[in-house]
């Protein structure tokens, strides 16, 4: 990401933010409410067109493309509020993603039920949902739904995975489990992961690097210990000084 900016009616939500994510790296994006995390996220995912700057994926510009085009180029994402295909079984949810990845959507004849079944089961096994493959998504526990979202995103074989508040609404033990799983998958597949997160324990536990955003600007960047020690970050989070209490 180079110099990304976005304004809403005169308010600069994100200004001139640049950073990079490497394959296999877990990059956390943190900051107080209203810092511009979601705006930044949506610009990378294609839900919002940036006003300025560019997004490069492996050297190709994907700036301003729609969410679908960005997905086709290898960016997967999970949503803060889980979104799965309610009329399908857990396995079919993942099969759907694999079908889409292979460009096999426009087929009208051969039944889809057997297609990529083994690949879907393999992904489900990786996220720990093998036993639930034939269940409806509506009856899954919340933590399992999050795992399913992860499997769906992986079905599209992404190079970059965007996770918006992946552990929101989960019990603390489940949070760690999900993020360790993600960490493991990122290393194994050489997958770059960019995620936002409110739970600081999770952030410091699993991320390789942390970006801190405040009022639309990048104020710090580094690994866990560096961020913990950063005076600017301490000001924003601990409220010492005038940085966050001004209005």
């Amino acid at each position: 990401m180079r110099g990304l900016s976005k304004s809403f009616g005169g308010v600069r939500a994100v200004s001139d933010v640049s950073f990079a994510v490497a394959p296999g790296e877990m990059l956390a994006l943190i900051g107080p409410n209203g810092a511009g995390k979601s705006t930044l996220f949506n610009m990378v995912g294609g839900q919002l067109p940036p006003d300025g700057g560019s997004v490069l994926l492996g050297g190709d510009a994907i700036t301003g493309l729609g969410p679908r085009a960005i997905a086709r180029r290898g960016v997967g994402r999970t949503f803060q509020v889980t979104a799965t295909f309610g009329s399908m079984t857990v396995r079919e949810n993942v099969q759907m993603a694999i079908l889409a990845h292979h460009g096999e959507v426009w087929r009208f004849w051969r039944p889809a039920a057997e297609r990529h079944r083994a690949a879907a089961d393999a992904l489900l096994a990786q996220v720990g949902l093998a036993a639930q493959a034939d269940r409806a998504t509506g009856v899954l526990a919340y933590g399992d739904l999050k795992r399913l979202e992860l499997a769906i995103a992986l079905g599209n074989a992404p190079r970059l995975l965007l996770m918006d508040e992946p552990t929101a609404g989960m019990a603390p033990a489940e949070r760690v489990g999900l993020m360790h799983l993600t960490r493991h998958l990122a290393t194994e597949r050489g997958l770059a992961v960019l995620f936002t997160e409110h739970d600081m324990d999770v952030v410091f536990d699993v991320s390789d690097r942390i970006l801190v955003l405040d009022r639309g600007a990048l104020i710090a960047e580094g690994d866990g210990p560096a961020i913990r020690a950063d005076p600017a970050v301490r000001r924003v989070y601990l409220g010492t000084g005038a940085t966050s209490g001004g209005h």
Partner: protein
Amino acid sequence: MDSVLPQLLTGLATASSLFLVASGLTIIFGVTRIVNFSHGSLTMLGAYIGWSILTRLPRDPAWFALGILLTALATALIGVLIERVVLRRVYRAPELFQLLATFGVVLIVQDATLWLWGAVELPLPRPRWLRGFVEVAGGRFPFYDLVLIAIGPVVLGLLWLVMNRTRWGTLVRAATLDREMVAALGVDQRRLFTSVFALGAGLAGLGGALSLPNASANLGIDLSVITDAFVVVVVGGLGSLPGAFVASLLIGILQAFGIVLVPKITLVLVFLVMAVVLVFRPNGLMGRPQAEAREAALAAPVVRAAPPALRWLGAVALVLAVLAPFGAGDYYLTVLTDACVAILFATSLHFMMGPGGMASFGHAAWFGIGAYAAGLLLHWAGAPMPLGLLAAPVAAGIVAALFGWFVVRLSGVYLSMLTLAFAQIAWAVSFQWVEVTGGDNGLLGVWPPDWARSPRVTYWIALALSVGVALLLRRALYAPYGYALRAARDSAARAQSIGLDVARLRLVALVIAGAACGLGGAIFSYGKGGVFPTYISIPHSVEALLMVLLGGLQTVAGPIVGALVYTGLADLLVRSTDLWRLVLGAVIVLLVTAFPEGIAGAARRLWLRGREA
């Protein structure tokens, strides 16, 4: 230049009448989120009741005004009745059931009006003051039209005062923005809804009564008015009063000039304007985006393939159907042919509505386009039946693609209303373009060639095509395409994030459904020997909905069962009573109010309860 001013004034007068009706519709929608199909019926009742009152009063302006106000009051009371008896029970039901419930009211009001006032048009005898003219810029202009022109802005002003200067109006505006929030604040929703419905119904009645001097009370008002009102409300933005006013002006003036400049395609012109507006402003000129909470709340159960037992049952039924001509007489063979067509009609609607998630209230449009494609080819080019059967789905598919290009990006209610408006326009074209389509008389002599003329062969052809196409549709639904279509319906955001092209998936579903339905229309025409505008009528569209809902949306076999049951019931009903609309309407209302979660949902609930016991 001479003709510009009078046309403009005519357009403004039309706009006023339109606004009265559309404002009621849009207020009701804003607060209750119900698209009130019976709004046109209230307008029609306004015309009839107005006629009955005004013909009994002295014919001077003061009494005229009083009569009009009494009429509005009467329709407001009827509105309260409808709200209390029918709508109150379906506020939590799926959107489609609400629409069906209000359509049941349309049918009941139709037959009740026919029974009370008779089939003859009732013109209002016009006293001298109503026939007067006023000099406007050197031309003579009807005095009454000027009155109408004034009434529109006056009503808008009064409504604005009520909405912005009273507590009730504040509640209405708040409920339009966020219904849940208003409920959470402890407002009595029942009274709010009832009063809103009364106001809307009163406005509808007012519009109906005020149109009397220029028109007459007739039985066609309900459906023609509801189409215009839908167009206005969609263009203006659902729930927006100023939007309805601006859209009324736009459509009224467009109609007035269209009739002079391009008389044959005025209706098409209106539709084009609507399409252009929606392409640039998908929520109408002044509307807001519809909240999506409703869609998400409607979680569909998992679709699983039918159990083997059901397949065997289907196979046995198919064998029986093939052998039927050896046992059934000619009359039953025509009913069975109708049933085959009904299967195409229902399965094609189910395809776009169930897995596709696009509810259509104008499915008969594709049926009619297919029928007219075959009929016109035969009539004007002497094309034989096989060519007609080929041309019908192609024509319907092409038109569906053009229509779909405008609408597949729209949200549920807008799309449903536009399908209805489109069907009404297709109907009007078939009805008005007399030189080509034969108008009301239709195209006659659309018979199959001699070898296929016997009821037996006609039936077999219908059976082969309808079962064949139904199986193809089923095949597509279990193929990757069908999965992707369902994925787009279940969660559009998620579907896009795995790279699915939601709009294109839906567009193709619409084209497939249109083509299959068009084939049904052609088969039907060859069976009946003619093509008529009634094929495209709104009641015909609603038949398709009834079939699908009878069978249930969630299963692929559902619409087939629904089509068969409906055809059988309708045959019985039409043969046994003249008031079949009334009976059908009452049945719809009863079904919907008794089983607001749908018949399939009710069966499921009963089954679950049985297991617990």
